[in-house]
Each structure stands twice: as C-alpha cells, then as structure tokens.
C-alpha cells in the first residue's frame, strides 16, 4: 500500500470513528472529490462500515456485564441521581433493519421448511404446541426464523435475535439468542442455554421451565430465566410468584420467589440462593412478551418489575414506555386524539374521534419526564424515536383532559400519576423550531415520536392497542 493510500485509509477510518476535525474533513473531501480511486475506496469503506453496523448490532449477543445495561433498569429515585443519567442512544440503523425485517415477516406470514430445528414444522395440519408470533432478526445459523411458523415438541435453537412463542394454552415465551430450548409439551420446556422471559395466563398456571440446575414452576405470573454455559440459572420474578427447586431435589421444599425478587441455582451451591433483583439480562426479551415489537431511537421500554412506574421514573434521555391495563374492555366509549395514520394536530374536544365501548384494548403510557441535571440544568430536552407494536393501534391520546379521563380507566390504580402535560404540535404554517411531533404510520402499528421539554416538566402519550381475545 502506498503512503498516499495509507493516509487516505487512516482519514476514512478516523472519519468513521467520528474523530476528524474540520481541516481533516476538508482534506478528505478534496481527495475524494478529485481522485477516482480515492472516491471508490471512500464509498467502499462506508458500505462495509454500514453493513458491519447492521450485521453486528443485530446478530451478536450483548455483553451481559456491560454497566450501562445494568444501570438502565434502575429508576432514579430508587437508586439516586446516578442512575437517572442514561447515555443517549443514537438512532440505530440495525434496529431499523430489524423493524423492516419483522414488519415484512409479520405481513408475509410465510412458513418455511426448517430442517435444522426439528421443533419447527411446516404443515398447518400437524398438531402443534406453540406458534412463533414474533421474530426479530432471528436466525439459526444462516436460516431465518419466521413469524407464523408452528412449533411442536423438540429442540429449538436460536443463534441470534428474538422470537416470541405463544403456546396453545396461553403461555407466552420470549427467547433471546443465543439460546437452546427443548419444547417438551404445552406445559413444559427445558432451557438448555440462553435467556427467556415468560408471561403466563391463568389457563397455563403450572407452566414449568426446567434447566440443568433448577426446576421453575409458574404460579400465575411473569418472570425471566437465564441459563449460562455452566448451567447456572438466574430466575427473576416481574409479577406474581413462582416456585423454584434445585433440579435434582424436586421433592425438597420449593423456594417461593415473589415479584421483585430473584434467585440463583448453580452446581456450586446445594441450595437456591437469593440474589439482587437485576433485570438487565431480560430487558431485550421482555418488551416482546409485552406486545412491543421494537423500539428505536430514544424510546425504551421500562424495566420489568413491580416498582417501576410513571410516578417514580425520571429520564432525561428517553421516552419511557410503561405497560398499563392489558386486554381490558371499557364499558364506555373512549375519546381519543388520533385514530388514523398521519400527524397529530390539535382539535376541539367535541371534534375528537371516539372508540366505541366493548372493544378489547391494551394500554401503554409513553412518558418523557425531564429533570434538571448536569452543567446546564435548564437545557431543553429533545428526544425522538419510534415504537412498533405487535397489534394495531386503536387510538392515541395526548390532550391533558383526555389523558386524565383515560387514566381512570387504563391507569395503574396503585400509582400516583404525575400531572400530565400534553404534547405541543406545530401549528399550521408556523416555521419556528421546538414543537413536538406525533406521527401514526400507515402500518397502524408504528408511532414516530419527537418531544421537546423543559426540565421540571413532562410529556405523556397514551397509546391504546387492539387486544386479542
């Protein structure tokens, strides 16, 4: 490689690393503009860099010991201000790619032959125990796992990505790769390696997750199980209760683990041991259990657990998504701000659309709760991102009066909600900066959100989703 080429390579790499100053950038631009070979190298490196970002963010396992992930799960007021400072997530193209892939898969509903994973079947006539209802960047080797595929008893391998399995009896498992899981029947799985989160409906109480070291029985709940390479099993209970035995001593007295508690079983210890309630391991899988297909940009799903709610969660850098009532049928009609795709604009109360009573709905609250911090505590916060739900959006609420009305119906009764402040869309013809934006996409599942807020204030948006029977 010539010195010229070497210095150009360095310039391009420094640019991709975000380390160029203005003079170096001009030098790079001049060389790219004036030299065909330099232009080719420049474009080639950018294409590879973009492809690497797309492949690597989507495909490789996350490091579980990363401090930022651990910190993400902690509400500021519980842990002190330290944990409120969450680094801003840049809008990731890999996540867009995952959204794209997932949306395509959901719509196509195609079923592919998948010989490497014997649990996956092709025929729709074969009795099955579960259905893959969501798949996000999910692969076994080079073979994509598709939404709509049916699963029977057998082993299921997931090298990367996320899938959601809905069992015929009402249990729902989200599996994050790399994972290996054996589906025994509709009430029992063996997690050999990896991370799952589970939401178990009343019809599936007693659902069992076995591992090399633990026997976990659901008692009507939501929980997460993680199994390491040495069989060490971590169990974290988000809602309700589970019982946990050591694997080889099922006759012994089980340990009851309640919401907000965590335990560990390992070959090194003869007992089930209490551990800290750390949910970072489960933060990728849990939103999939909760009906959220994907979030990108500065939107993030609240950590799973009983103590995280809109009343105690401040976050300057993110719009946080809180699940509220699920599968609820309101007796009265619900007035909302938006039902059709497009951009939100203010309207009179009596002109707002109304959702008829009797429709089964699931509610989520999106909240940006800004607070003063750092060297410039009064800096106006600006965050944006998008969220894609598994089911269609029935209505979006943001006007303060409608937020208060719907809070009575969909809000968590045990939570004191902070005073809402409605989003401020740009008035028609107003070119000034600083307005909020809410756009319901044409797929009716995706909401684009851009919020600006002064410290000490908060914005809220309630999203009502069509729920299944």
């Amino acid at each position, binding site marked *: 490689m010539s010195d010229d080429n070497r210095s150009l390579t360095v310039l391009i790499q420094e640019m991709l690393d975000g380390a160029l100053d*203005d003079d170096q950038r001009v030098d790079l631009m001049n060389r790219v503009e004036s030299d065909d070979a330099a232009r080719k190298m420049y474009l080639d490196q950018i294409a590879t860099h973009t492809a690497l970002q797309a492949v690597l963010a989507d495909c490789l396992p996350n490091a579980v010991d990363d401090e930022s992930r651990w910190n993400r799960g902690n509400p500021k007021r519980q842990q002190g201000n330290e944990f409120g400072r969450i680094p801003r997530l*840049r809008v990731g193209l890999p996540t867009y790619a995952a*959204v794209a892939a997932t949306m395509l898969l959901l719509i196509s509903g195609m079923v592919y032959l998948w010989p490497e994973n014997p649990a996956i079947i092709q025929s729709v006539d074969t009795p099955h125990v579960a259905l893959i209802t969501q798949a996000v960047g999910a692969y076994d080797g080079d073979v994509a796992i598709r939404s709509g595929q049916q699963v029977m008893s057998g082993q299921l391998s997931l090298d990367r990505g996320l899938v959601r399995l809905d069992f015929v009896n009402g249990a729902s498992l989200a599996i994050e790769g790399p994972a290996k899981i054996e589906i025994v029947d509709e009430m029992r799985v063996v997690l050999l390696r990896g991370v799952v989160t589970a939401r178990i409906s009343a019809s599936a109480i007693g659902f069992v997750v076995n591992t090399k070291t633990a026997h976990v029985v659901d008692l009507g709940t939501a929980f997460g199980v993680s199994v390491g390479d040495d069989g060490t099993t971590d169990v974290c209970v988000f809602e309700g209760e589970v019982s946990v035995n050591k694997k080889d001593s099922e006759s012994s007295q089980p340990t009851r683990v309640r919401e907000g508690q965590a335990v560990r079983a390992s070959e090194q210890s003869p007992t089930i041991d209490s551990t800290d309630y750390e949910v970072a391991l489960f933060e990728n899988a849990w939103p999939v259990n909760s009906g959220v297909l994907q979030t990108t940009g500065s939107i993030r799903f609240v950590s799973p657990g009983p103590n995280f709610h809109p009343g105690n969660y401040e976050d300057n850098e993110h719009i946080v998504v809180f699940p509220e009532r699920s599968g609820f049928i309101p007796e009265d009609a619900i007035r909302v701000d938006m039902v059709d795709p497009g951009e939100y604009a203010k309207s009179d109360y009596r002109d707002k659309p109304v959702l008829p009573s009797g429709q089964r709905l699931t509610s989520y609250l999106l909240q940006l709760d800004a607070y003063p911090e750092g060297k410039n505590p009064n800096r106006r916060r600006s965050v944006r991102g998008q969220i894609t739900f598994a089911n269609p959006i029935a209505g979006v609420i943001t006007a303060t009066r409608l937020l208060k009305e719907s809070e009575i119906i969909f809000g968590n009764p045990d939570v004191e909600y902070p005073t809402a402040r409605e989003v401020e869309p740009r008035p028609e013809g107003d070119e000034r900066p600083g307005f909020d934006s809410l756009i319901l996409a044409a797929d009716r599942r995706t909401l*684009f959100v851009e919020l600006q807020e002064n410290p000490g204030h908060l914005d809220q948006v309630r999203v009502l989703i069509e729920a299944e029977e």
Partner: protein
Amino acid sequence: MTSDQYILAITAIQNRLHAYILSLLADPVATPDVLQETNLVLIRKADDFQIDASFESWAYNTARFQVLAHLRDRKRDRLVLHEAFAEKLAPVAEVMAEETERRVQLLGGCVERLSDEHKSLLHKRYGKETAIATLAEDLGKTTSAIKQVLYRIRNLLAACVKERLQEGTVG
C-alpha cells in the same frame, strides 16, 4: 404502492439511506439525526409520492435535501465546499448505497467465521458503538493497538466478502 407497502419500503431502505447520508456528510455523528429527519419527511410526504415513480429515487432525493438542509442549519464556515461535495458525490453514493444490502447478507456469514474474541470486539465497536478510547481503556491496550486489530478484522471480512462475491454465495 399502498400505504402499507410505502411504510415497508421506508423500513427496508434504512441501511442504504444510512450509507448514502454518511457518504455525503462524512460525519457519522450527524448521520443518524439526518436519517431520522429523512424518515419523518418521507412519512409526512407519503401522499406526494407518485405511485409509478421509483421509491428508491424518491427516498435518496429526500435524503439529499435533508443533508443539504442539515449543512445549512449548521452554518458551517465551509458550507459551499460541503454542499458542493454532497451534490457531486450524490449520484455515485446512490450506486454504492444500493449495494449495501448485498454486503449485509454476505457479512453475516463472514462474521460467523471469526474468533469469539474478534466477534466480541466487533460487537462492542460496531454493535454498541463503543468509542475506541473506551475499548482501549477497558481492554488495557493503546488506542492504536485497538485500531490495528479492528483494521485487520475489517480486512479479513473484506477478503471474505470478496471471496463470497466471487463464489456467488449468500449466508
């Protein structure tokens, strides 16, 4: 194109738009913001899209305008130079961007061939966008050592992609 197809087309073109915008701006920090602006404009102007037109051309053109708007908003000293660069590069950048998805397909298989140590480093650098200085500190190495390793890995991957392109294989 139906509205559903339109939104799917937007999501499907994200990698390509990212590569396109990055090449015109030569600024990886600003690129995600301009990409997001482009997405918002594409959504807002869905009704303006002509059904029989090329969606890709529509999207690249929208992105180009957002790049120029970004440069003007920042009122850089060398605005004229930056604008001229973006305008001149746009046609070839579009061709490069169109090849990005092919590289994504090929790279997926190539990354699997790497050692766990190299995969972990790549994941931290590209998947989590950890700064090289932070990686160096975490791993107890110098920044130039980390850059060298990343450079070698990228060369390995480039060779793998080239080989697979010649084989005509994917995955």
